[in-house]
């Protein structure tokens, strides 16, 4: 165990994977000599050399397209997209190719690419360095989507992602890259996909969150405890595959649900959670399901704090949910 930040844990995960398997290599913009704009790949260029930590031209189409070719050939490429906001030039390769290669080939061509991208708000990044568009990827059959909220999960989920036989979109909440630290197991630490993390147990209401939203949910729970409201917090960890069992079980216990995410509200992942609960936990539900989300506006610069969910908004929604019935 070593204490480190979330971005350091990403770095340790990458190093571990590269040491384990010579087929693992990294590619992306500014990840080599420069160590990545967030320093996630710091030191790896020196350690593994230019043919395993590849600085590419400025083309996400090229990054993901070539990563796919490498994976088809048998390597395990890990592509970095500098900000999730810049993944769209590669969207065709992701949704038309990466997600569908195994299927369209009848299982002949698996395509185990991991795409890492820092995402989310809270760093004063404005429209194009802040977005949370995980729902696009969750809606795309053939992709797995993992989002850590702790350093240990960052390393553990990343190692699972890299060794997964299928493509994984690995989203790193950059807002907590350095603000969150924690103990991280040394060596080959893996966290399985599809198992949510029970952050805290509670009886009155279930709050579902992931990534940078786990912290404000926890703060809200503290505040609510003072009012006598006992909040359960579930960190989903992987949105695809989803730990539906844990989600449904939590609401069967508490009878109330609040979903939190930074992404825009309409068709965000919160909608999917609501829909699952409205189908599978319907008879346990005592109150309407609330969503605390980003608004259906582009991500603003000056008004970032107004846009983002925060403990106050979560407290407000939980209170209303508990009051409703």
């Amino acid at each position, binding site marked *: 165990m070593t204490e480190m930040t979330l971005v350091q844990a990403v770095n340790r995960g990458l190093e571990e994977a590269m040491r384990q398997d010579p087929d693992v*290599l990294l590619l992306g913009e500014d990840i080599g000599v420069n160590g990545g704009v967030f320093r996630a790949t710091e030191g790896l260029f020196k350690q593994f050399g230019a*043919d*395993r930590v*590849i600085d*590419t*031209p400025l*083309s996400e*189409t*090229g990054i*993901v*397209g*070539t*990563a*796919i*070719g*490498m*994976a*088809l*050939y*048998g*390597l395990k*490429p890990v592509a970095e997209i500098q900000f999730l906001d810049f993944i769209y*030039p590669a969207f*065709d*390769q992701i949704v*038309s*190719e990466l997600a*569908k*290669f*195994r*299927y*369209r*080939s*009848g*299982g*002949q*061509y*698996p395509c185990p690419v991991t795409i890492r991208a820092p995402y989310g708000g809270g760093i004063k990044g404005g429209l194009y360095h802040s977005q949370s568009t995980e729902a696009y990827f969750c809606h795309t*059959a*053939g992709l*797995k989507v993992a989002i850590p909220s702790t350093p240990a999960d960052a390393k553990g989920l990343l190692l699972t992602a890299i060794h997964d*036989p*299928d493509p994984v979109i690995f989203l790193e909440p950059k807002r907590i890259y350095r603000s969150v630290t924690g103990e991280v197991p040394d060596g080959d630490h893996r966290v399985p996909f*599809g198992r949510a993390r029970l952050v805290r147990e509670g009886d009155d209401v279930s709050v579902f969150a992931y990534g940078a939203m786990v912290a404000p949910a926890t703060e809200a729970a503290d505040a609510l405890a003072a009012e006598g409201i006992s909040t359960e917090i579930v960190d989903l960890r992987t949105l*695809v*595959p*989803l730990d*539906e*069992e844990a989600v449904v079980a939590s609401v069967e216990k508490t009878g109330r649900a609040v979903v939190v995410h930074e992404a825009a509200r309409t068709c965000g992942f919160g909608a999917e959670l609501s829909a699952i609960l409205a*189908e*599978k936990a319907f008879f346990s539900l005592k109150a309407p399901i609330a969503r605390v989300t980003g608004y259906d506006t582009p991500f603003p610069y000056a008004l970032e704090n107004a846009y983002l969910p925060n403990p106050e908004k979560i407290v407000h929604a939980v209170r209303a949910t508990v009051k409703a019935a």
Partner: protein
Amino acid sequence: MLDAYRWMVVARVTDERCLSLQRQGRIGFYAPLAGQEAAQVGTALAMHAEDWFFPAYRELAVALVRGIPLRSIFDQLVGNSQDVSKGRQMPNHFGFRDKNIVVPSSPIGTQITQAVGAAMAAQRRRDPIATIAFFGDGATSSNDFHAGLNFAGVFGTPTIFLCQNNQWAISLPREKQTRSATLAEKSNAYGFPGVVLDGNDLNAVYRAVGEARARAVRGEGPTLIEAQVYRFGPHSTSDDPHRYRSDAEVAAARERDPIQRLARELAEAGVLEASADKAIWETARAEVARAFEAAEGTPTVDPLSLFDDVFETRTPQLEAQRSGFAAGAGSGGGAP
């Protein structure tokens, strides 16, 4: 060369047969390659078994030369339970892992960057092979053309970019696709050589691809080859070319038919007598008919296979959707 001729004839016969099968509603769709046989056969012959192929949707002759049985071709065209791709794709999307033919998709151009990535992987593994991407004149406008050729130049990958310029992208003529004088010269923008050649000339194709492959494997980097051909038929069975081009233009192009050209050359060289030629066509017709009938008589795919190969292992969600489907519940997760 006689082998090459045979492949070209089989391709042409398959084409003719498939156009009529589609009209009869016995296959769902077909994109003919007539006019492009020399470009495809010459290229495939010049490459080695261990090279990696990234075709588009018109490369039926390439698959044949690589050793794919006609029967497998028809299994794909029909989408039956013997199709190695499990009936997952529209006709014409031929891919066979055991012959290093990567399964193509429909979006134009995406295979180009992938071929470069596979070449980068081969470089890393120090495998002395080349990768080759097939695409049309229209695909030179795609994002992946630009990214793929640029990466290939920067990383000096062992990749051949084989552009079959058949003069049309559906209804858009070559001159309106781009204003460069040739497509081949676009390689200059990425710092490596481009070659234009007459794609009706089997030998020219064979030589140019052979040289490009040799360069690639020697570590001298990529080559862009523009094989100038003409698409004799419609873009696909959904297309009516009379809307956008004249019969005269097609007739003029047919004068340069690559099969007739090779037949003439072989006859002149004394290796193809009229009777042998006739036999080649007849054998081809019989083989094609036989292969199609076998494919048509093969059972359809298992409905439950719908849920396979999304991932190596089904997620709980897919498992639930599969059970729901099996139980007749239709969509997801059993009864609500």
